[in-house]
Every structure is written in structure tokens, then in C-alpha cells.
């Protein structure tokens, strides 16, 4: 058969067979841009490594300093506790917000309005000063006799202020995330469950919540990462978190930059681990949606990998004739 002889044209003779080998388009501009960016990044990296002001030996010296480690522990505990409480309270607030009870839904709305409308830093300072204003925290109704109470001083108090401040603020954001997730599940789904005889709790737990989580998990992961960083605001009330521990050290030795590098490295380690965990959890709740036909169990994944590998080696062994 005659092949096309005309070069550099999109036209082809009706009688001719066009060639079949494909040559992808090249984009020299992109390569140039990438090269430039790499150059800039490399020189920046070079300056960071070689600039004496970063004092890398000092960074190394303080990286595992016991006080820094204690600060890291405080930051992690604070994040874990405040986030858990924030999620729990957020679910309650979302339930109230979606309730048909007008009083509950408007109270919840007012709560969100306040805690999302004022800065977290202001709230923390507010709770801190409130604890000074009320020397005893006590529960009583309308100024009657105390039902439960505790003194509001001491280290415990600092922790309480920090956790209350972070939790109340976080719950307002989580409430909106949870509500968005629950609303994303079509009403048909709960109806199908109810028609099968499932009660409201079963319907919520087994049908609505798992589907809502697909929508809830990604922004919650962002919230956790945000919380880890926002928790550094508690240094303002002198709770020895990661930042405050570093501040304590550099206020004495004036090695400000290397100590900030130390804690930045620790923040990065934590957020990296959290992002990794988040992507795994997202995959779990995305099942049945992203076209995965088979249940993606660990064994199935191994088997798929095995068959891919063996296929590849087979195709390498007997290259198909061209």
C-alpha cells in the first residue's frame, strides 16, 4: 500500500495510509521555566545551608533538647484533646443546628456566629482573664448553692484555659463541616434504610454517617493540621507548648533563628505524618465511589501488584513482534 508522502500537513490523500507512529508535542517554554525555578530553589537552599546565621550546629544541638521534647509533647496532647473534644462538641452542635426544635437550632447558630466571628487569640486571652475574674469555677443555677466547683488557679488552670479556648473555637468550625457532610447524603438513602426496618439510630450510624464522612474527613484533616499550628497561640498564656519552650530558651541564649528552625522542623514532621494519615483515611471512606469495583483489601492490593509485576515480566520475556 502507498504511504503518505506529503510532509508537514494535516491533509492525507484518500488513497494513502497515514503513518501510525506518534510524536508528542514538546513544550520548550515549560522546560526553561522549570530550569529557572530549580536554579532559584537551589541557590536559596545553598544560602540556607551555608548562611552562618542559621547556625546549623545549634539547630542540631537543640533538636532533641528535653525542654523542646516536653514542648512537643504538650503541643501534641493539646492538639489531640482539643480536636477530639472539638469534634464531639461539633457533632452535637451540628445536630442542634439541624434540629426541628427552633430554640436549639438558633442557640447553636448564635454559638457559631460568636466563635467563628472572633479571633482565636482574643478568645484565649478572654478565657485566661476570665479565670482570673472567677477565682472558683463552679456550677450552680441562678446564683444558688454550688453544685460542683474547682479552684481556677495553678498549672491545671493553664491547661484548662488552653483546652477550653481551642475546643470551643474548633467545635464551631467542626459543626459546619459535620452539617455539610450530613446534608450531602441524599434523603433517599435514609428512606431506603428506614423502609428496610432500620431505626433512626441504625440509619444514622450505618447509612448516613459513613457516607457523610467521605465529605467530612478531608476538611477535618485540614482542621487537625490547622489545630496543631494554631495551638502555638497558647504560648500567649505561658503554657509551655513547642513554641513557648523555644521562646524560653532563646530569651536566655538569644539563638532565636536556630530555635525557630528547630520547632519548624518538628511542626513539619507532625504535619507530614498527619497528611499521610489523612490520605489513608480518605481512601477508606471513598470506597464504592471512585470506581473501585472490588473491595480494596490489603490482600487484593498485594494480588493486584503481583499480577502487574508478573504481567510486566511476561511482556518483557516475549516482546510482541512489531
Amino acid at each position, binding site marked *: 500500500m502507498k504511504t503518505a508522502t506529503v510532509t508537514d500537513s494535516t491533509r492525507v490523500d484518500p488513497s494513502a495510509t497515514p503513518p501510525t507512529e506518534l510524536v508528542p508535542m514538546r513544550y520548550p517554554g515549560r522546560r526553561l521555566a522549570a530550569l529557572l525555578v530549580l536554579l532559584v530553589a537551589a541557590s536559596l537552599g545553598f544560602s540556607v545551608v551555608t548562611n552562618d546565621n542559621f547556625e546549623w550546629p545549634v539547630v542540631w544541638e537543640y533538636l532533641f533538647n528535653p525542654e523542646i521534647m516536653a514542648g512537643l509533647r504538650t503541643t501534641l496532647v493539646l492538639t489531640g484533646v482539643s480536636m477530639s473534644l472539638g469534634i464531639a462538641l461539633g457533632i452535637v452542635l451540628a445536630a442542634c443546628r439541624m434540629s426541628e426544635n427552633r430554640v436549639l437550632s438558633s442557640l447553636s447558630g448564635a454559638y457559631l456566629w460568636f466563635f467563628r466571628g472572633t479571633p482565636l487569640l482574643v478568645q484565649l486571652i478572654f478565657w485566661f482573664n476570665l479565670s482570673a475574674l472567677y477565682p472558683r469555677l463552679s456550677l450552680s443555677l441562678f446564683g444558688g448553692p454550688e453544685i460542683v466547683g474547682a479552684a481556677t488557679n495553678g498549672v491545671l488552670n493553664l491547661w484548662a484555659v488552653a483546652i477550653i479556648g481551642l475546643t470551643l473555637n474548633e467545635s464551631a468550625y467542626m459543626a459546619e463541616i459535620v452539617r455539610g457532610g450530613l446534608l450531602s447524603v441524599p434523603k*433517599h438513602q435514609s428512606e431506603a434504610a428506614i*423502609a*428496610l426496618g*432500620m431505626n433512626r439510630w441504625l440509619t444514622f450510624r450505618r447509612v448516613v454517617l459513613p457516607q457523610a464522612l467521605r465529605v467530612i474527613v478531608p476538611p477535618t484533616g485540614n482542621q487537625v493540621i490547622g489545630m496543631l499550628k494554631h495551638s502555638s497561640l497558647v504560648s500567649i498564656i505561658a503554657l509551655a507548648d513547642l513554641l513557648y519552650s523555644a521562646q524560653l530558651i532563646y530569651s536566655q541564649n538569644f539563638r532565636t533563628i536556630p530555635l525557630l528552625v528547630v520547632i519548624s522542623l518538628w511542626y513539619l514532621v507532625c504535619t507530614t505524618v498527619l497528611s499521610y494519615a489523612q490520605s489513608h483515611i480518605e481512601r477508606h471512606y471513598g470506597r*464504592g465511589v471512585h*470506581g473501585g469495583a472490588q473491595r480494596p483489601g490489603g490482600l487484593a492490593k498485594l494480588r493486584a501488584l503481583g499480577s502487574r509485576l508478573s504481567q510486566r515480566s511476561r511482556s518483557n520475556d516475549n516482546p510482541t513482534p512489531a
Partner: protein
Amino acid sequence: MSATTSVPDGTDTPTADPIVRIIDLHKSFGPVEVLKGVDLEVHRGQVVVILGRSGSGKSTMLRCVNHLERPSRGTVVVDGEVIGYRIKGDKLHELSPSAVAKQRTRTGMVFQAYNLFPHMTVLENLIEAPRRVKGVNKAEAVKDALQALEEVGMAHKADVYPSTLSGGQQQRVAIARALVMKPSVMLFDEPTSALDPELVGEVLNVMKRLATSGMTMIVVTHEIGFARGVADEVVFMSEGRLVEKGPPSQVIDAPVHESTRLFIDSIL
């Protein structure tokens, strides 16, 4: 044929006891009265097809049978039990939500949009309610589920997620999901209306087989062929009332009522 048919010749002639009794059923949404007094009896093994224009109240009536909608007035009795209420003296007292949930296991419902649970595999969709509502153990639930899937020709898809199935396949799974609860009556709300035309047949075939096996069925559909071939009784509904009722040969081929005739003409 139905095992309980009392007539010796084995036709679907109703036995004395109706499985579903709808008595003077009214339903309003706000000021709009959607059901204006519906009375209907469905006997064991009977297939009743409900025809009617969109908006005439067919879905609402079906949803009152399993109490997805609460009637404004009137009573629904399934299998001898008043749905949603307890009789105390001369009054009906509303049942708790969990008690109503238990009553719903007597009715199976198939929706227009299938409504399979997308986060569960086909098999998980089928064993969920038997296990958690009826407390059936897992091995038995799986056995029942596989058998039900076999009956609708979907056993080979037990381990896939619903999103990978065609509409017709999803609807067959949805039918199986309702069947594993072993309901006394199956309610179908336009089960083929969302399907591509070439997929309608496979679902109707499953429903035909189900009817032949003696299942009591109330079917809202526009499939006249199905009504003619399978229904024991056809009911025409218009503006919240049942205006005509009888065997398919009468309601479809020789309707008495003017609105029935107009409707039948419009869909044939």
C-alpha cells in the same frame, strides 16, 4: 402460584384474609389534600397495579403503607397489624419510632432510584438489615443473600460496589435486598421509570417471576404490558382517589371512567 390460594383451580382468586387493608386513607401536605379517602384491599398472592397521572398520589399512598408518610386520617393494616398505631379502647395511639421500624419489616419497598447504599458492596447491602434489624447471624444472612441474588441473576456481582452496576442490575439488587427481609408484601414505586429502555425488561422479568412465586405485590408503574400480563387487579388513581378498579381486561381495555380512558389512551 400462591400456596395459600384456597380455590382448587389455583388461580389468584383472593383468600378470605387480606394482607393489606387501606381504609379511608387521607393525607394532606399543609393545606393540600393529596389523598382524599382511599380504600383498597390486597389479598395474599395478589398483584395489584396502580395506574395514574403524575401527581395523582400514587407514591404517597404507597409510602403510607409502610408509614414513610404518616396518614392524616384513616388506617393501614398489614398482615393483621395496624401500621403506626396501637388500638387502645376506641382510640389509635401512635407507636414509638422503633416499634414502627419493626413493623416495616413486613413490607419491602423498591424505589424508582434503586437507593442502594453506595459505600457497601452488593452483598453488604443485602445482609445489613437482616443482621442488624432481625439479628440473623452472619453465615445465615450471607446464605440468604446469595440465594436472593441468585434469584435475580446477580450472584456473580456479590462483591462489587453498586456504582459499577447498570441501572437494571442495581434495581435487581434492590429487589433482592427487600426480599431477604422476607416481607409479606412488596411495594414497587415506578421501579423501571429511571431505566434506559433496553434495561426495563430484565427488571420486569424479575418482577414477573416474583409474582409467579406467589409474592403479594403492589406495583405503581406505567408499564401497561406488565399490568396486562401480571396484574390480578388494576387500579386507576386520579386526584387522590381510586376511580376505577378491576381486572386488567376491564380497566385497561374497556375502562368505564372517562379519566381512565384518557389516561390509557395517552400512554398506549
